[in-house]
């Protein structure tokens, strides 16, 4: 049974067509990486899956149901979304932020219950942010803030978690920490889509990779299937050498300038 099925998805901002016929089908709770050059439509695809943007053609189905036919609360209980890092000047404590994740389950004036607090606590434990609960969000580091946002998305108890470049500007320790944590979430029956910039990290952590180029998927499958010299050259216009990562047994890519250009420089 497919959890997410995307069928002939087209999307445009005004006259500029950003997604041009996306098709894929994910069954099982996996970690899916979305990679591709800047401007190829990664974030747009993510927002179409979440139902935030409406495709002008094609459909997204989650557990067999069309996302565009769901109401916003229904979507919010099914899909968690972690945007690119944003800074907020207003002071909210971390636990208040994570508690916002329970809004899809609460009526307008309903107070949070013990059960909501328990779920918030679990989400914060899972992301290692419980010790930050009384700190203000605007005094945290980027990595801590990102984990708080992930905790908020988890408090929505989603089946699908969408992340837009969750590790791009973090130091290496946090990159590995967060990706390992996300990978573990798939064991808790959460399907994860993450836009990633680092090809090697996506190779190491993802079960499935979608490689995008100018609004189309040019390759999808396991890292072994997708990360080939030809595909990388096509998507990023850059030459690569592909080795085997001896630790994770996945492709390891070393990027270089176009051959020939090097010689001209010398």
């Amino acid at each position: 049974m497919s959890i997410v099925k995307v069928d002939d998805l087209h999307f445009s901002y005004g006259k500029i067509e950003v997604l041009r016929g996306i098709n894929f089908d994910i069954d099982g709770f996996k970690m899916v990486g979305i990679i591709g050059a800047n401007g190829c439509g990664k974030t747009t695809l993510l927002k179409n899956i979440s139902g935030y943007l409406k495709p002008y053609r094609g459909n997204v189905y989650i557990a067999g149901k069309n996302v565009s036919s769901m109401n916003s609360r229904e979507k919010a209980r099914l899909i968690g979304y972690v945007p690119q890092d944003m800074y907020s000047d207003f002071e909210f404590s971390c636990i208040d932020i994570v508690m916002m994740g329970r809004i899809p389950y609460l009526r307008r004036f309903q107070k949070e219950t013990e059960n909501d607090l328990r779920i918030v606590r679990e989400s914060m434990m899972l992301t290692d942010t419980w010790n930050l609960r009384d700190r203000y969000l605007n005094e945290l580091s980027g990595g801590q803030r990102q984990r708080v946002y992930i905790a908020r998305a988890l408090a929505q108890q989603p089946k699908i978690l969408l992340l837009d470049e969750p590790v791009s500007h973090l130091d290496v320790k946090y990159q590995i920490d967060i990706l390992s944590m996300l990978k573990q979430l798939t064991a808790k029956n959460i399907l994860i889509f993450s836009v990633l910039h680092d090809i090697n990290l996506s190779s190491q952590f993802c079960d499935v990779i979608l490689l995008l180029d100018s609004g189309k998927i040019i390759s999808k499958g396991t890292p072994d299937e997708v990360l080939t010299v030809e595909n990388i050259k096509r998507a990023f216009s850059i030459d690569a050498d592909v080795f085997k990562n001896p630790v994770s047994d996945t492709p390891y890519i070393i990027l270089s300038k176009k051959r020939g250009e090097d010689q001209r420089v010398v």
Partner: protein
Amino acid sequence: MVLIASLMFSASVGAVKIPLKSIVDIIFGGGNSTDRMILLKLRLPRIIEAAFTGMGLSVAGTFFQGLLKNPMADPYVLGISSGAAFGASIAIVLGFGLFGLQFFAFAFALVTIYVVYILSKKGPYVKMQTMLLAGIAISAFMSSIISLMMLLNHNEMSQIVFWTMGGFSLISWSQIFYTVPIIFIGCIALYVFSRDLNVMMTGEEIAEHLGIDTERVKKIILIVGSLITASSVSAGGIIGFVGLIVPHISRLIIGSDNRALVPFSGILGASFLVLADTLARIAMAPVEIPVGIITAAFGGPFFLYLLIKNKNREVK
């Protein structure tokens, strides 16, 4: 408690002092007839209008700051005040009475915000940054026309200036009947959306993903906030600073959570403006100081004090 105390204090002092005890008597139908007249006909309407204006401006300011994610925002930032001033100036120049003036101020305030809204609407979305800029541009334009009108109508100039500085000296029960219900219902309507605003302050996209219809909430806040502001301004003129400073002071005291902040800010704003108006009445009696001068003179330094105190706390 603070609010009740300031209401009582304000009712008591003035050209004729009315002891607190007789105020209580009058409220319950007793007291001597002169005091009764002064209190019920002159002071009470004024105090009520000041309290509701203070509450309305503070609550609207709190929401506008959160909505625009801009600490410099106040209820006037989108051009409502200059629209109202423009309407009032026209009414004054054309020699309309008090009612005409208030109607023009109210109407032009709403027309202005509508124009700003239409200018910043793109498809179904409203761009907040564009709105801010459009508000500033329209304000500048209106101000220049007002200046021109003042230049061409020397005789009415002082009246226009006095109106724009704000004050409650002309308030009677008739203004209260139409402003107070709008402000009161408006504040309650806004309060309903305080949790939504919390989430929107951390990002509109994320709010949408938590099942909040952000475009709808934005529109409601803009419309209701503008109605509150327009009715405050039409009765009391442009009273600056309250809608900017009171939300900030409240935020420094009890934090950013709008569910607590909005009521707190409303009550603080009401007390603050009642006290400021009392001072405007008695400080240089029998001359009335425009209340806008008092709010700025006291609000500014106090706010600076809080800022410095807060800065020191962060350093430690």
